[in-house]
């Protein structure tokens, strides 16, 4: 997919110039900043809580084989079935097979970014299974036929008028401009689907090794219903979601809510440890988990960027990123948008095709400051740039760096070059310079000083 960069540049240019849409996104995020700060203030030491969250994930990821094995053993002891998928295709096949064996008529899904990553809905629909997204934002995006804009707030870019039109078109409801009424339309529509569905598919936010439970974080109650009413529950999760102990959640659940949505805790944080137990009156008869690698082990093999696997998908780095706020989530063309997406996508899909995302950063570090698990995001963007230049240097990289290397080792050449450069600087302003077009369009070159720094130093000190 070599045109991913071209698409990115085109989308980014258009969106960055759309002041109305940018103002809309800023307004939508305004309430988040206020609530996040109010909740952060309740922490007696947010920075040290970040230390604890970071260490909880560090210790699990750096002992992944053992922790994962412990999780799997406990999960199976609780009566769940474990499936392993090396890549997206294997994960899709596993889920399709479960659906075929169950002769499923209807499938309901709660929000799961990993399922976006493996394009699960497409595969299910092609195989003839009806699948409905139940998270309101995902439901709207599914009707729009569009990927999520933000991996926590999937349709934050869509105005209520557009949602009203969408519902009128697909559900035949009367137009309304009330977010509440629109939410109730979706509520009424989806309720019957939970009751009728054979299979419920969810993601997982944490896999608790100590107890073999999976933890699901949500606000709407759709995941609760998805895992309560259908006969079969399938959870799809990356292998890196594991944590050592149940206690780790006492730090991670509140921090996920505060960093991600400015809440003390999201509305429902649910631990599932198996199918319906003896003596329980409801719940699924079967509980499957699909554990997905899909290049996560490639990221694991890079000790410098391994901490990117600590990500708890709160979306805080997107919410503070000046690039995300200006170009929007769809421009990225990735499952995971914003700084974390720009860091991990090159590992998941190939550095050569996706390195351009490393350049989509002002390196301001707002993402790193916002990350509740202390992922060194903005430095990883630099690491990706360096790795890309090493792996497949462009012609410009080669000519420029070899040239620079040659000149810098020869002081006489450096001095001569400097003199020529100072003399010709006014001319450069008028030339159409390669690579510099976008920069020069809105900026003037500075005036060249009469003397070089070395000459000045000699003059003043020698």
């Amino acid at each position, binding site marked *: 997919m070599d045109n991913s960069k071209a698409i990115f540049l085109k989308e980014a240019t258009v969106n960055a110039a759309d002041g109305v849409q940018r103002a809309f996104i800023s307004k939508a995020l305004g309430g988040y900043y206020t609530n996040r700060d109010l909740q952060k203030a309740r922490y*007696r030491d947010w920075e040290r809580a970040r230390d604890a969250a970071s260490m909880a994930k560090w210790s699990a990821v750096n002992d992944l084989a053992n922790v994962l094995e412990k999780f799997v053993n406990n999960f199976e002891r609780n009566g769940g079935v474990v499936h392993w998928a090396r890549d997206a295709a294997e994960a899709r096949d596993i889920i399709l097979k479960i659906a075929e064996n169950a002769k499923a008529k209807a499938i309901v899904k709660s929000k799961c970014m990993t399922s976006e990553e493996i394009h699960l809905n497409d595969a299910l629909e092609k195989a003839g299974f009806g699948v409905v997204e139940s998270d309101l934002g995902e439901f709207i995006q599914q009707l729009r036929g569009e990927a999520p804009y933000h991996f926590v707030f999937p349709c934050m870019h869509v105005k209520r008028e557009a949602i009203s039109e969408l519902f009128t078109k697909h559900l035949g409801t009367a137009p309304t401009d009330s977010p509440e009424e629109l939410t109730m339309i979706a509520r009424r529509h989806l309720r019957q689907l939970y009751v009728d569905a054979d299979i419920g598919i969810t993601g997982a936010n944490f896999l608790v090794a100590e107890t073999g439970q999976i933890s699901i974080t949500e*606000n709407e109650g759709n995941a609760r219903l998805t895992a309560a009413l259908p006969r079969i529950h399938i959870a799809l999760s990356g292998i890196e979601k594991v944590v050592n102990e149940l206690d780790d959640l006492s730090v991670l659940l509140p921090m996920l809510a505060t960093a991600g949505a400015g809440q003390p805790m999201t509305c429902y944080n649910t631990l599932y440890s198996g199918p319906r137990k003896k003596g329980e009156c409801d719940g699924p008869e079967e509980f499957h988990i699909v554990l997905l690698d899909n290049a996560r082990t490639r990221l694991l093999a890079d000790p410098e960027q391994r901490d990117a696997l600590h990500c708890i998908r709160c979306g805080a780095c997107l919410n503070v990123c000046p690039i995300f706020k200006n170009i929007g989530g769809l421009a990225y063309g990735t499952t995971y948008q914003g700084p974390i997406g720009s860091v991990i996508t090159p590992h998941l899909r190939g550095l050569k095709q996706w390195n351009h995302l490393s350049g989509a950063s002002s390196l301001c570090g707002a993402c790193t400051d916002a990350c509740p698990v202390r992922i060194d995001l903005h430095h990883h963007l630099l690491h990706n740039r360096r790795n890309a230049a090493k792996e497949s240097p462009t012609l410009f990289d080669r000519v420029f760096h070899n040239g620079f290397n040659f000149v810098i080792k020869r002081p006489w050449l450096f001095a001569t070059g400097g003199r020529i450069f100072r003399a010709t600087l006014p001319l450069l302003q008028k030339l159409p310079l390669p690579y510099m077009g976008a920069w020069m369009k809105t900026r003037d070159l500075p005036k060249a000083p009469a003397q070089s720094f070395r000459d000045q130093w000699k003059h003043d000190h020698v």
Partner: protein
Amino acid sequence: MSDARTDIFARIREALKVKAPKPHLKAQTSSPKTSVAAKPWLPDGGETAEDSLLILAEQLAKLKAVLIRVPDHASAAKAFAELATTKSWKKVAYHGHELTRPLAATLTCEAWEADASFDKQKLEGSDAGLTTCESIVAQLGSILVSSRSSGGRALSVLPHVHVVIAEASQVVPDLGAALALVKARHGTDMPSMLSFITGPSRTGDIERILVLGAHGPKELFLILVG
């Protein structure tokens, strides 16, 4: 071709041969060994039972959940009956328990125990679900229900209103304490579902504007005895 599990574990072991540095912590010298050690840095849940109840009341109010404090079980039943009348409930589903039965008995509308296997449609058509809980977390305003304490998975989330009846002694200061209690109580025989409910169901998916009652209950009442 070897199986996927073997391959993935081989990849993980190979990848972890090179050690990664610890994260850049604020407190390098006293990096936390366990998450339990993080307790003093998290939001306060109160030192005494009295403190915890104050924090709980404040959190529930912010979450738009309704706390009804009553001195004894007779007043709890009265408060519940009044709620049913005010809200004109026609059908109430409840989890059969010594705390809930006296409340259900005061109702003049239809009340049914949803503990045996039940009709999903009937539960969906119920105006309210009445359950007990495992514990209540003052720090966050969360109510921990389980497939045991709340009569399965759906009763606390499918009816349009959720009412929880609990004793004040079930309030614990923080999330860590609630999780410790779960482990102590259930050990390796956990209920198949444990859910921290923090306020009524909500969404901000449309223009980031808060709407209550996205898919789960629109209203959440906690009747606390004592």
